């Protein structure tokens, strides 16, 4: 691809248009870096790894949340135009940079950290041995590759309507840990992800699954949480 790209950036002080040389195999992040280096030194954006591992470079690209370091311009530009905006559903710090703190706060609320099983009194704590190929391990592995990029969170309408909703990423993380036999916080975690701000708010529209950069299925994870809670304690009488 040769010629120029028109890049409309939703900056904090208002929309600004830039002309950027089009190159073959250019990623959206390349374009943003070009603007910052050559045209607008004050443009704020964020990235770290550039290879799809860190999850820090997500933005809204032509109306849809994407990881910009792994998104080729050729795939998403419409008639030579790119429209860039910060990720939806998070506070904007400046230009294309959002504050991810509320996003990770939801992970904390969903008990998104591993908590090893307690060993019986007097015994040395040890992890259960779970063969990598076993169905148990595969179930836990299904959603484990999440890089915390916030793309699914930005794509979820329910997050937009109810800012307290934990959202697909945090719930996918919770489901991963619920399925991890080495984890000991199962009941507490199910309680943390239940209710109107948790998995029960999800409408199973699957936008999260459609956009997940790692090809994960947060919608299925959330359905799994609902199912687990339903069969364990359908009327909230106790138990889980």
């Amino acid at each position, binding site marked *: 691809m040769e010629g120029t790209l028109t890049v409309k950036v939703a900056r904090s002080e208002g929309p600004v248009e830039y002309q950027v040389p089009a190159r073959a195999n250019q990623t959206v992040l390349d374009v943003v870096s070009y603007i910052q280096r050559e045209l607008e030194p004050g443009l704020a954006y964020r990235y770290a790894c550039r290879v799809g591992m860190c999850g820090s470079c997500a933005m809204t690209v032509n109306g849809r949340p994407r990881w910009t370091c792994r998104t080729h311009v050729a795939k998403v530009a419409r008639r030579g135009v790119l429209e860039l905006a910060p990720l939806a559903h998070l506070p904007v710090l400046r230009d294309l940079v959002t504050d991810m703190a509320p996003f990770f706060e939801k992970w904390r609320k969903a008990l998104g950290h591993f908590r090893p099983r307690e060993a019986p009194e007097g015994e040395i704590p040890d992890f259960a041995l779970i063969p990598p190929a076993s169905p148990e391990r595969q179930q836990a592995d299904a959603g484990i590759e999440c890089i915390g990029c916030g793309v699914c969170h930005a794509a979820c309408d329910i997050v937009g*309507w109810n800012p307290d909703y934990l959202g697909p990423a945090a719930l996918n993380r919770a489901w991963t840990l619920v399925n991890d036999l080495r984890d000991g916080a199962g009941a507490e975690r199910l*309680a943390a992800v239940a*209710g*109107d701000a948790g998995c*029960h708010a999800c409408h199973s529209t699957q936008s999260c699954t459609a956009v997940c950069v790692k090809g994960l299925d947060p919608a299925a994870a959330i359905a799994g949480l*609902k199912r687990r809670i*339903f069969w364990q304690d359908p*009327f*909230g009488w106790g138990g889980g």
Partner: protein
Amino acid sequence: MGRRMRGQVLLWSLQRISAAVLALCVIVHLATILWAVRGGLSAAEILGRTRGSEAWLAFYALFALAAGLHAAIGLRAIAAEWLGWRGRGADALWLAAGLATAVFGIRAAVGLYAA
């Protein structure tokens, strides 16, 4: 789980269960209509079927209860998302609306039974 959270899980479960009940009831209801209109429809014919029939009374009472609860719980979610109506007051209102709808339906079913 706190009490409030339990209530929310309960509502979600009721929503799913009432959906399943409604699916069955609607099928029976439609099948009955198709069957009943074969030779033309009259009030006398309908009452002949429902009057004094505990089975139809139970069926329509269950139908009305499921419809009332299902509609109210669904509207509650929509109002929370679109209008921001949340909290205990809103929940009490929706519960009342759902039960009132159900009571109207059940009253009608009782009317058919006792007519």
